[in-house]
């Protein structure tokens, strides 16, 4: 028999006061509002997370729009910049892109000609940075979605079917956890030189989903034991419907948070791989290759490191703040109970 403990009730009220979440029991004035709106409102209350979300969206948009607002130069019909100024035929107005070399400007600081300066070989840092951000963010987002997708399929299947399926899948998870993933992707990097960067997305996801899968498995397992799930089962509700109505909505919040936090992880994995030359290959760039190229000159040409280092830090911070904010919004109690 569980008699609700009185002091616990009081404690909960006291705590929730500071935690910023309290549902007054039986307050007639409180109209039922949809859960989505409630979560949204709770999220909005977290200023840092909102700012982070806005910043992230802005940076993402900027990485696509920004290249169209770069400084211009006079070039030929193919927008090849002139090696020496004033050559005939070089009269097209062109915009610097991440591949072009300005042979009149090597390792120059930010100026109106090159907003964020140039590299040793005369490439436009602004164009490179945006291209790098674009690549890193797109790869991060895709890989994160994929990671969580694989994880939720495997995790929920293992928990739902149980028995033999469960054992096989979890054994597979164990094995992948034992394999040094970074090493394997690095080994395989020569294979996808020249092929599409999408392969990199797949590889990052393949070696990142296991921990999430375990978490989803244990959540599904415990959800299956909830009384309202049993109630539905005893009412004759079909398994697929139970999963759709009672299990998935409960995991959904976890999945959304997980995707968000995985974005940060995936971006860092991509950057690390590219940093060592195992990821995005020249002439394409990502924040990782830019960091690699910029680090040695950082003492003399700060713009080579500061912009891409700053951008990466900011992106990852933003993603994590958004994820943290979402988690708080979905599940106010969890902020204290989970460390990540």
């Amino acid at each position, binding site marked *: 028999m569980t008699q609700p403990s009185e002091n616990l009730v009081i404690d909960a009220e006291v705590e929730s006061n500071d935690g910023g979440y309290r549902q007054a029991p039986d307050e007639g004035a409180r109209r039922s509002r949809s859960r989505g709106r409630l979560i949204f409102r709770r999220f909005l209350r977290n200023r840092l997370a909102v700012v982070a979300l806005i910043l992230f969206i802005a940076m993402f948009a900027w990485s696509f729009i920004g290249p169209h607002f770069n400084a211009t130069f006079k070039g030929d019909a193919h927008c090849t910049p002139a090696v020496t100024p004033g050559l005939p035929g070089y009269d097209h107005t062109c915009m610097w892109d991440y591949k072009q070399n300005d042979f009149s400007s090597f390792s120059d600081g930010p100026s109106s000609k090159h907003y964020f300066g140039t590299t040793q070989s005369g490439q436009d840092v602004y164009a490179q940075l945006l291209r790098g951000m674009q690549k890193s963010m797109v790869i991060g987002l895709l890989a994160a979605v994929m990671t969580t997708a694989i994880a939720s399929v495997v995790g929920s299947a293992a928990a739902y079917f149980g028995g033999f399926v469960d054992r096989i899948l979890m054994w597979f998870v164990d094995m992948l956890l034992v394999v040094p993933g970074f090493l394997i992707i690095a080994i395989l990097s*020569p294979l996808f030189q020249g092929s599409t960067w999408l392969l990199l997305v797949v590889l990052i996801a393949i070696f990142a989903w296991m921990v999430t899968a375990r978490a989803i498995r244990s959540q599904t397992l415990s959800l299956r034991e909830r009384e309202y799930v049993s109630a539905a089962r005893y009412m004759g509700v079909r398994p697929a419907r139970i999963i759709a109505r009672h299990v998935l909505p409960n995991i959904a919040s976890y999945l959304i948070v997980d995707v968000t936090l995985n974005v940060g992880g995936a971006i860092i994995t991509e950057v690390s791989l590219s940093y060592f030359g195992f990821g995005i290959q020249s002439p394409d760039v990502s924040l990782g290759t830019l960091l690699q190229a910029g680090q040695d000159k950082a003492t003399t040409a700060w713009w080579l490191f500061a912009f891409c280092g700053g951008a990466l830090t900011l992106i990852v911070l933003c993603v994590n703040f958004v994820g943290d904010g979402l988690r708080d919004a979905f599940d106010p109690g969890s902020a*204290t109970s989970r460390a990540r």
Partner: protein
Amino acid sequence: MGKFLLRRFVNYLILVILAASMTYILAGEALNPRAQFQAKTPPPPKASVDASLKTINANPDTPILVRYKRWVGGLLHGDFGKEINGGSVGADMKRRILVSTRLLLIATVLGSGLGILIGAYSAIKQYKFSDRVITLTSFVLLSLPLIPLAIGLKLLAVKVNGWVGHRVLEYTGEYAPDSHGWGRFTSRLQHLILPTLTLVLGQVAFYSRYQRATMLDVMGNDFLRTAQAKGLRRRKALMKHGLRTAVLPLVVLIVYNVSLLFTGAIFTETIFAWHGMGEWSVNSIQQSDVNVVAAIGIFTSCLILIAGMLSDIVYVSLDPRVRV
């Protein structure tokens, strides 16, 4: 319990064998050591390249399974094979493990110790100003990507050295090669500061967040009230009963992470030019050094499993609740 440990061990062993084989075969197929030899100036004749490749059992023309068999044969005698430049993988590994250990031991001790203290403090001061500052700081630190952090610290060191007038903070290698005796010791210290800081910041942040969470869980428990009800002062109840219980999961985690310490720190070692295991794993792939890659693969897999088993054992021995 022995029986269950044994069963788990066998299961792990199979996993390691599979993982290591996979690493070897992937490395053998994907990496191209021939290119490394041919890239030399002047390019050596094909026959001599073949001969070199053969001595290190890495000739891509030999079927992978034959190479694999030979490699396993060596392994069974404790021989990890030869490096691409002819050196012994085993000998190099021993040296590099020590380098990584020297780097990571201090960082781990500092990181986990400080993390536990700060986390517990933060939990006790929940929602107070100091807790908010600690929580936010550790969150930001935890989110900081290691590469820009390390490079940034390096830049900072250059600035600091500039202000001081001579090199206080070193950022390349383990020690100055021309130093001796006492000088070697101070040189080591100077070289340790930056990479240690790089590693410690993240670890402190991670452990303090974790400790804060477990401590808060424990603080909601009735047994702290019982401890106070029997006459312990709040602080003593929190330390003796609360922290002692809350630190368990953390100790388990630390044991796990310490076991993995020997695999090195890829970024910190590479950026600060420490020739440890982490740097080795990157270099070996860049140099298509199949045997080294495979050795690192085995080593890492084994460590992950040992870490798992060790932490389980520690968990069981520390927490009476899960004792069999």
